[in-house]
């Protein structure tokens, strides 16, 4: 049997479709209208990387989807006007082994085997890039997070929605925040960029190059590596020699940990470092200890964010995994929330109507109010997180902050 997750809560299977009308306040009920028989479930499908290179992402995203489904089903599901009843959600997911081709066939299987209402994405831009076109071809709304690559959104896909900060936000926000938080004269104006030669790396690097001067920063070192090269010695030496004060980079974990260990060894401490990707999991702090302190990230969310529902999510996550929700859990959870709200608003399981509803609506989620632009990018909060004392603290924007930004970072040898 395919791996159908009705979540751990028994509610799903029991949720009797007939109970729903009584509860609803919908005026339609009064007219004794006849409704078509409701499907047993609202089917959501996900091809997600649980093994292979992107396994760490997939395993963070999946619980977000699962808990959201569980929470919504605990309320009986989503009310769909067309059937005049609440219908529970059902998530079916397959492991694509971090292989784009397998992802394609898993996407097709999901579509063929289930009356899908929407796809939920996996993790990593290359996986999204392979999957999204299938959704587009099958005309099924696709909600995906955990990729900042903006370019995907410029392909004209109609069914893609991503409530997640993108490269243009990140590369602009970092300078904005610094200029707001740090008085002129103390700012780390000499910037080293350690980028990648993949398309996200290039997109990101290009944007940084463009923005830095606008905000009064100068890029003194720009180094590029292929993904998976964990030796950054040459780049670090150049940065050190150029007197760079700030590091902007987006390494995967092995590269990032290698980078920071070498930085400590070579004695170059940037006053401020924005390190996207590698430090987004709790393993960063566990693995790197003091060396990994004070780096900042733009993960799209933090469990300390003061939005409705965050506490409930954290509580459940704590129950399951013994810690507050991880950074990707919130956005994943939000995807399901958005879908549920859109379906309810649309009042139908017609995918095109749902798509239009997502595109035009405003949704309130654990990541805050979300609306979508025409290209499918979400207007979402882009909080800055900093590693402090082995924990990730939300340091920006101030109204959500759990701790103040620490600047400048103390030198490695003084920690």
């Amino acid at each position, binding site marked *: *049997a*395919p*791996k159908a997750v009705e979540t751990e809560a028994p509610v799903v299977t029991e949720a009797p479709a007939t109970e729903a009308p009584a509860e609803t306040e919908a005026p339609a009920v009064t007219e004794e209208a006849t409704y078509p028989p409701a499907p047993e479930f609202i089917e959501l499908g996900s091809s997600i990387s*649980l*093994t292979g290179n992107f396994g760490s992402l997939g395993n963070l995203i999946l619980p977000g989807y699962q808990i959201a489904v569980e929470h919504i089903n605990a309320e009986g599901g989503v009310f769909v006007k067309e059937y005049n009843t609440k219908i529970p959600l059902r998530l079916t*997911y*397959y*492991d694509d*082994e971090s*292989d*784009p*081709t*397998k992802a*394609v*066939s898993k996407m*097709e*299987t*999901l*579509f*063929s*085997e289930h009356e899908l209402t929407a796809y939920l994405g996996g993790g990593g*831009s*290359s996986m999204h*890039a*392979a999957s*999204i*076109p*299938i959704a*587009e*071809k099958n005309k099924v709304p696709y909600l995906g997070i955990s990729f900042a690559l903006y*370019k*995907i959104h410029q*392909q*004209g*896909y*109609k069914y893609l929605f991503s409530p997640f900060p993108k490269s243009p936000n990140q590369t602009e926000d970092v300078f904005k925040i610094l200029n707001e938080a740090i008085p002129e004269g103390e700012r780390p104006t000499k910037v080293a960029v350690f980028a990648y*030669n*993949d*398309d996200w*790396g*290039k997109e990101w690097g290009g944007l940084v190059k463009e923005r830095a001067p606008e905000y009064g920063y100068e890029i003194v070192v720009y180094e590029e590596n*292929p993904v998976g090269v964990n030796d950054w010695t040459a780049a670090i030496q150049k940065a050190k020699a150029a007197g760079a004060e700030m590091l902007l980079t987006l390494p995967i974990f092995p590269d990032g940990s290698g980078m920071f260990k070498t930085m400590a060894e070579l004695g170059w401490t940037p006053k401020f470092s924005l390190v996207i990707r590698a430090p987004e999991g709790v393993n960063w702090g566990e693995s790197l200890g003091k060396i990994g302190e004070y780096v900042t990230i733009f993960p799209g969310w933090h469990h300390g964010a003061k939005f409705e529902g965050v506490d409930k999510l954290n509580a459940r996550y704590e129950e399951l995994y013994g810690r507050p929700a991880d950074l990707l859990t919130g956005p994943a959870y939000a995807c399901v929330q958005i879908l549920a709200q859109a379906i309810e608003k649309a009042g139908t399981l017609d995918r095109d109507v749902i798509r239009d509803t997502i595109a035009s609506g405003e949704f309130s989620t654990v990541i805050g109010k979300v609306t979508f632009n025409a290209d499918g990018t979400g207007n979402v909060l882009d909080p800055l997180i900093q590693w402090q004392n082995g924990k990730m603290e939300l340091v920006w924007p101030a109204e959500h902050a759990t701790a103040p930004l620490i600047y400048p970072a103390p030198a490695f040898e003084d920690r």
Partner: protein
Amino acid sequence: MKKNLSFVIALVVTAALAAVPLFVKKDSLLTYLCMILLYVSLASSWNILGGYTGQVNLGHSAFFGLGAIATRLLWFAGWNILLAMLVGGLLAIAFALLIGSPAFKLRGAYFTIGTLALGQILYATVGNLFPQISSMPVQDLISYTLVTRYYLFLAVALITVLAATLVANSRWGLGMMAVREQEDAAESLGVNAFQHKLLALVLSAFLAGLAGGAFAFFQIGYYPQYPFSPIWTLDSTMMAYIGGTGTILGPIIGAIFFVVLKEVLSLNLAEFHPTVFGILFILVVLFLPGGFMGLWKRIKDKQQKKRESMAELSHP
């Protein structure tokens, strides 16, 4: 008589495969069939050099990737897909010719790892030169049909298997096997080992290039580097081995076994499917050290021996 029988079976199987889209409407099933056909092409083309000629090539994905990249670029530039694929195949040949002479200076493990390095170089270079994702334009997605892809994969697989069969049963095939078994002896009998290896390489490369072209036509969005990944080589090598190298049917059986087993397991066991796959895979290897075709051969040998001993009994 036996030849005729296999010919008839082959025809029937081909006809059945050609009729599949008439009955199968599910895109998921068609996608799996496409994957199987793709791997049949890859494993069979690998087998021409690795199985028949004994040159274990771990850089096969280079040819697959070259075919894919050329086809994709030309196709997006508006070329006819078949023409684009042909150019992809020719590009693979060009690369084969370029590396043939230095590569065949190496023997055994040195050749194997040398080709692995070649494949990795291409993988890294393409990653450097084409970092941008290649996506089919959205307006083309509307007209995307899997059935066309299916037929293309089928055609490539048929061409590959047919070419392999023709070569294996020719004088060239004999020469290749001689080179595989004992290069010195082969040369002493007049077999030009280099020529045979090169021919096998060129053919293997061309067919893999065609497969790459078909892949480029099939996969909607991917990084140009992806078809160059060593995983393709590893998978097709494993398929050829587990089916039985140096035979026509081996790689076909291997590909089917591999893809189907993997798919069935991953659809049914979300978290532990690789473990179960690995265990089954190892068990098959331990019990069938010559691959599936090895088992087949042993059964035939046993029968043959029985017949011989019967004959001996009747004419002492």
